[in-house]
């Protein structure tokens, strides 16, 4: 496979630039229910211009168009957006301290619920795999877990106060109801609830003493199997972690995530985003305007897994790259967004020589 062939040459081809936002684009999300077979891919993006834009690729022209602008709801920057696993709902997190839930009602996106409670800016929102739970986090240092009830009702199930600073991102494990959060306090926390008791508590804090980051951790991403995760930080490194997935599945809450690799020396400015593709390619977006790709390296000289740089795309954008996200539908297609106000669609291709 070409990823294992160190002689393979890759290039990142720009497919299209999506313009429209009038301020920096903080985040984007591919609708997981689209982009396969007969449905055209859809992306939601959110911005400092207080709006969320929905983009769809035309079946006819293969060109991306803006289908909707969700405005007049959030009163400040919209920091993060994420689709529910079924693709039916979109959650948006804002500096206005609320999280809005949107539903596509006959082509029209309507705000069907607003989650309030955080004391200040909400930074991130995440749905669990079964769509029964939502998590949000904020500069108020808390992580909230919400239960999804019938009729688009959301009930707060827990308010977690473990972090000592601004929480930057929350992410549910891809298959299990385990919640991860990362923070300005440099740590990553792992949270779960015993059975259905609803007693959510922190089972692990990954800090500097466990080979953790030495500055703000901005993002977390899991591999397809869910037994590894990669985190990115203001400390200019990516760190890869591993856990015994079978142990976790059997309900063992003593299973710990262990550090297996630190990718250092590749970035010289803050790394804001990291995303692990189904195929195993780690993409990173950083404050030096570049996008980088890493894969596991089959280096027999090194004990344990190691990672190598597959490609560095300099000047991917004119300004900081805030987010990178692989397409769930198409192979090796990536979307990125930037302080320059644009979203770009890319294809990671091999240079056939």
């Amino acid at each position: 496979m070409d990823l294992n062939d160190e002689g393979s040459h890759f290039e990142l081809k720009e497919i299209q630039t999506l313009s429209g936002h009038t301020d920096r684009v903080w985040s984007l999300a591919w609708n997981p229910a689209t982009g396969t077979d007969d449905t055209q891919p859809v992306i939601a993006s959110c911005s400092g211009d207080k709006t969320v834009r929905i983009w769809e690729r035309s079946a006819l022209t293969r060109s991306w168009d803006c289908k909707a602008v969700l405005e007049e709801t959030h009163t400040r920057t919209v920091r993060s957006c994420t689709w529910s696993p079924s693709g039916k709902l979109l959650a948006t997190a804002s500096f206005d301290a609320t999280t809005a839930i949107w539903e596509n009602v006959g082509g029209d996106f309507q705000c069907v619920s607003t989650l309030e409670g955080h004391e200040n800016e909400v930074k991130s929102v995440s749905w669990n795999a079964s769509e029964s739970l939502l998590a949000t986090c904020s500069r108020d240092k808390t992580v909230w877990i919400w239960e999804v009830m019938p009729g688009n009702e959301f009930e707060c199930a827990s308010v977690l106060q473990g972090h000592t600073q601004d929480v930057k991102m929350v992410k549910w494990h891809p298959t299990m109801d385990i919640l991860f959060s990362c923070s300005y306090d440099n740590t990553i926390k792992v949270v779960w609830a015993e059975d259905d008791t609803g007693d959510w508590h922190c089972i692990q804090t990954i800090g500097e003493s466990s080979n953790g980051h030495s500055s703000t951790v901005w993002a977390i991403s899991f591999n397809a199997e869910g037994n590894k995760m990669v985190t990115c930080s203001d400390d200019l490194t990516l760190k890869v972690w591993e856990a015994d997935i079978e142990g976790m599945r059997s309900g063992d809450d003593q299973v710990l995530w262990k550090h297996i690799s630190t990718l250092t020396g590749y970035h010289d400015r803050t790394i804001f985003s990291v995303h692990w593709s189904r195929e195993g390619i780690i993409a990173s977006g950083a404050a030096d305007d570049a996008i980088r790709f890493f894969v596991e390296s089959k280096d027999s000289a090194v004990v344990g897994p190691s990672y190598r740089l597959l490609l560095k795309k300099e000047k991917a954008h004119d300004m900081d790259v805030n987010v990178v996200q692989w397409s769930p539908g198409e192979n090796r297609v990536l979307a990125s967004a930037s302080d320059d106000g644009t979203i770009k669609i890319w294809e990671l291709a091999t240079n056939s020589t």
Partner: protein
Amino acid sequence: MTLGLINANPIVHAKKERVARCEDPHCDDAVDPLDIYDFVRDIRDPEHPYSLEQLSVLSEESITVDDKLGRILITFTPTIQHCSMATVIGLCLRVKLQECFPPHYKVDIKVSPGSHADEEAVNKQLNDKERVAAALENPNLRQLVDECLYSNEL
């Protein structure tokens, strides 16, 4: 005496002689520290009717530029060790530079080493882009920053 100011008695220095510079800011393409200094030296202190230069919060030596890489580093010296206005000054510097320089310049702002009791914490906040963006959406803070940037010279 005015109550409530963090530093009620700052030391005020005379303004430095302005060296006559080429009128056209692009007369030589490279950006040097003095180009940047000219933009920030007259920013008014949040608490006192004096410029950052007059209070020796900034000087030409505060600024380093790597024009090729497009990187700017500014260090500033708050007038006292426990200055809670340090973050406001940092925000003023960032906003001013954003306005005056092309967006591809990367700007890092720090307090000069040893000049503040919470040096690491202040530096971290000043360089967290998300925190800066959120702070500038706060109308009161934004107003204070605007006053520091746009108030007329005495």
